[in-house]
């Protein structure tokens, strides 16, 4: 136990719940707040925080589960790569069961492909060191929290002079999708719980232009239950007073300017590109791919493969879910043909997907 566990204190959570009730009492139209990050979605379901909020506060989930917003085409390329001889795919565990157009890495591994789950991209570099006769491809997905760790692995591989370490990079960045959602009249968000650890890297200043342009309150919020409840309380206060500012609830970790060294490493190894978001589409400059000077490490360029034709899964509402337009319970597949054991959509696969969280904690 350490004192940081006090951020899970039940009494404090109850106190915050009471405060939010008092503040919003008698307000007719509910306030809609979006938690952008999948880790928030998980925390909200895991601790049952929705049940502690009054009907005047509605939380919707956003596009912040990196596995969920990764389009099928990326998976299809990873699957084509894992079928190559003398090639090892290294990946975070989340990607294993995500269905591509016609297969998944899990299925391919059962058929004999060498797919290894790692905890850190540095573990993938170690696999490359130990297997000089094989090519090792790390699946680089994730937001700005994860992208610097993958940049770090490329720098480590370069320092070691490795010629057999590659990254299939499809990183996404914030806050571009939030701008798209803010402009969507169907969604009408009254405030954002901004991601905790993405913001540790990019800094809270990153939300200022969005906040100014759309007049929507933004609170950078931590992942513990007291953090989430306090983040909501701060959003409620802003919304009720008609203000729209960027605030930092998670001030023990997030600074206004962010982590400048990690930002410099991202700029060194990656370059912005127009990324494709499942459900949202292609957003200009919303992703990171490997910069030309590091292209020897770019799996897409270094290992050409034929990728199967793209097929989307019929009936799956993941796309609408990632925009906060529907909840898992609106999807006809949820809990029926789509379950964590045999997922159809990405939102059910990733442990941070809205459907997986709803299935596990709220069904």
């Amino acid at each position: 136990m350490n004192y940081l566990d006090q951020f899970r204190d039940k009494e404090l959570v109850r106190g915050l719940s009471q405060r939010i009730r008092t503040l919003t009492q008698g307000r007719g139209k509910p306030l809609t707040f979006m938690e952008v990050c999948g880790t928030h979605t998980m925390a909200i379901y895991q601790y049952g925080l929705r049940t502690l909020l009054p009907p005047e506060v509605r939380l919707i989930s956003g596009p912040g589960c990196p596995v969920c917003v990764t389009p099928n085409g990326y998976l299809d390329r990873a699957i084509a790569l894992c079928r190559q001889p003398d090639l090892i795919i290294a990946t975070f565990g989340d990607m294993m069961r995500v269905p591509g157009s016609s297969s998944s890495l899990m299925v391919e591994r059962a058929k004999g492909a060498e797919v290894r789950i790692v905890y850190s991209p540095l573990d993938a570099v170690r696999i490359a060191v130990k297997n000089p006769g094989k090519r090792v491809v790390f699946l680089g997905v994730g937001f700005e929290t994860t992208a610097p760790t993958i940049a770090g692995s490329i720098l480590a591989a370069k320092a070691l002079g490795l010629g057999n370490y590659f990254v299939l990079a499809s990183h996404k960045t914030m806050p571009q999708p939030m701008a798209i959602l803010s402009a969507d009249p169907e969604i009408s968000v009254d405030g954002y719980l901004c991601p905790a650890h993405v913001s540790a890297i990019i800094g809270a200043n990153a939300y200022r232009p969005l906040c100014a342009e759309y007049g929507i309150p933004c609170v950078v919020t931590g992942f513990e239950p007291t953090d989430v409840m306090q983040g909501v309380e701060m959003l409620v206060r802003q919304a009720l007073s008609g203000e729209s500012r960027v605030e930092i609830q998670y001030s023990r970790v997030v600074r206004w300017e962010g982590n400048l060294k990690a930002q410099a490493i991202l700029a060194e190894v990656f370059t912005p590109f127009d990324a494709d978001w499942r459900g949202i589409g292609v957003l200009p400059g919303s992703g990171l791919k490997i910069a030309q000077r590091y292209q020897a490490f770019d799996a897409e360029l270094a290992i050409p493969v034929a990728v199967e034709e793209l097929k989307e899964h019929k009936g799956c509402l993941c796309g609408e879910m990632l925009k906060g337009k529907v909840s898992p319970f609106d999807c006809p597949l949820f809990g029926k043909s789509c379950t964590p054991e045999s997922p159809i959509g990405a939102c059910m696969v990733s442990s941070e997907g809205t459907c997986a969280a709803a299935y596990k904690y709220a069904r």
Partner: protein
Amino acid sequence: MCVGVPMQVISIEGDQAMTEVDGVRREANLMLLDQEVVVGDFVIVHAGFAISKLDQEDARETLAMMREVFTPESMG
């Protein structure tokens, strides 16, 4: 995927730190940090890297403030 665990630094060798929380130990690479870290500090560990330092004084202040304002008793 953006889960990061607050862990305490128990030793540092070059860019590599050993960190611990509740008896669990993990290596954390320090190359991404722009703040100085010493043994005893808390860092947020994500995928084998420390991505941010945790300001312990700030954490205690936040907790103290929450206790003062948001405990059910004090709110009547």
